[in-house]
């Protein structure tokens, strides 16, 4: 095979799907073929059956909705705080000098380790779930956006100055529009991470949500349900990612033209 040689769209699709097929086939073979103990790993068919029962009888879709709300709520909260701060840090160097060391430090504080503390402060209600996601996302968003904004093309800034822009005009009519697609891409990336935090938050001290269902199923050795829950998370993540991408494309046609 020639390195870096592109592959046709048709073959790309076939190859992409065939791995899923292989994966499920292997899973079916080791479970249905009796190669692993069914207590530890459910087969694909009973996974689907368990999933169906969850949705129809146990109203699992309510858990799904509540998890989605938590992800978007916490993520929105983090974005509202982080985007302006990130832009301010990238644009004004004294602001960056003031905040960057702390934010860099805070970024390495694991959100999951905050859960016990957050439960003490906020209880095990919705606020605690939102705060876990907030803590997990906010510092990441701030730092990435600050770096992107800091690397705004200098020649565009200079061109704007020679056209009469004021300092504030540079920020609002050059730096912000120039970085808007990158900021949207950053948010899309961090939304993916937020899905991880929400499940962690729901595994500990929760009575609803996908994570709660998963931890609940563990005590009953219902591996079919666990796998179904994991797949649901993956699918929602994939869908929201697609939607986000399409939204960005619609919002910033110029960056793709």
């Amino acid at each position, binding site marked *: 095979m020639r390195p870096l040689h592109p592959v046709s769209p048709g073959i790309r699709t076939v190859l992409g799907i065939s791995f899923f097929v292989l994966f499920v086939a292997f899973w079916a073979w080791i479970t249905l073929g009796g190669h692993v103990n069914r207590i530890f790993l459910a087969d694909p068919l009973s996974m689907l059956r368990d999933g169906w029962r969850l949705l129809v009888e146990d109203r699992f879709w309510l858990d799904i909705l509540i998890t989605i709300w938590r992800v978007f709520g916490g993520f929105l909260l983090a974005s509202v705080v982080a985007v302006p701060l990130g832009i301010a840090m990238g644009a004004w160097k004294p602001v960056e000098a003031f905040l960057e060391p702390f934010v860099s430090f805070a970024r390495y504080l694991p959100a999951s380790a905050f859960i016990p503390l957050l439960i003490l402060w906020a209880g095990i209600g919705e606020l605690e779930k939102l705060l876990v996601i907030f803590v997990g996302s906010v510092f990441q968003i701030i730092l990435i956006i600050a770096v992107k904004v800091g690397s705004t*093309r200098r*020649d*565009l800034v*200079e*061109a*704007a*100055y*020679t*056209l*009469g*822009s*004021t300092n504030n*005009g540079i920020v609002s*009519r*050059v730096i912000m*529009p*120039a970085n*808007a697609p990158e900021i949207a891409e950053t948010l899309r990336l961090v939304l993916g991470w937020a899905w991880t935090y929400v499940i962690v938050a729901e595994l500990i001290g929760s009575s609803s949500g996908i994570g709660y269902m998963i931890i609940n199923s563990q005590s009953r050795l219902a591996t079919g349900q666990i796998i179904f829950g994991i797949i649901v998370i993956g699918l929602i993540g994939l869908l929201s990612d697609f939607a986000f991408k399409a939204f960005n494309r619609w919002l*910033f*046609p*110029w*960056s793709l*033209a």
Partner: protein
Amino acid sequence: MSKLLIEGVSRTFAGVRGGEPVKALMPVDLAVAANDFITILGPSGCGKSTLLRIVAGLEAPSEGRVLLDGKAVTRPGPDRGMVFQSYTLFPWLTVAENIAFGLRERGMPERERDGIVASYVDLVGLKGFENHWPKQLSGGMQQRTAIARALANDPEILLLDEPFGALDNQTRGLMQELLLGIWERRKKTVLFVTHDIEEAIFMASRVIVMTARPGRIKSDVAIDLPHPRHYTLKTSPEFSALKARLTEDIRVEAMRTAQTQSA
């Protein structure tokens, strides 16, 4: 009175990691008359772009000062329009919105802007491309838009930093004629930096030749070729004589640059 006065302007860059400071530009004096088209010709790295950026206010001189209409230049402003070598159209704005940028920054109402923008779109021959994004344009069209954007602001002086340097030869020739045609009709004070001898002669009413780094003015050549100029002028004997003279001037400097670089 001169339109633009450059008085003893020099530029020294601080040394890297405690090294010797680098002199990029020796003190330069230059007086530019209103509506003159000046080209600044020099080998690469001679500080000609630095000089232009100082006039634009994008860099501060280490010594000396720049006066435009008697007022000292301290920062960039709309009275000094600039066209850069790199493509600096705002990618999120259409051609028309790019041209309107300076007018919008000035707070001009949209209706008033539209008329001005339309006339400059027409001037640089971009009718039909008003709503294109910069990415959809060729390099030549992007630079035409950049010229229109700078001119739409009606600056006192137009500064161009090797604006056609990244274009292919044919496009460059056409762009030279376009810009010169605009200047012949609308009269504007122009400072045009280039390392292309032919371009320097063809465009200019006066060519300033700079030495190798640290740059200073080596010669100041009036170009008395008649206007309007046509591309065939480039093959005339007068043109060739000027070209021979400037080639000799520049060659010595280019060789000095090559020697200091290999030393």
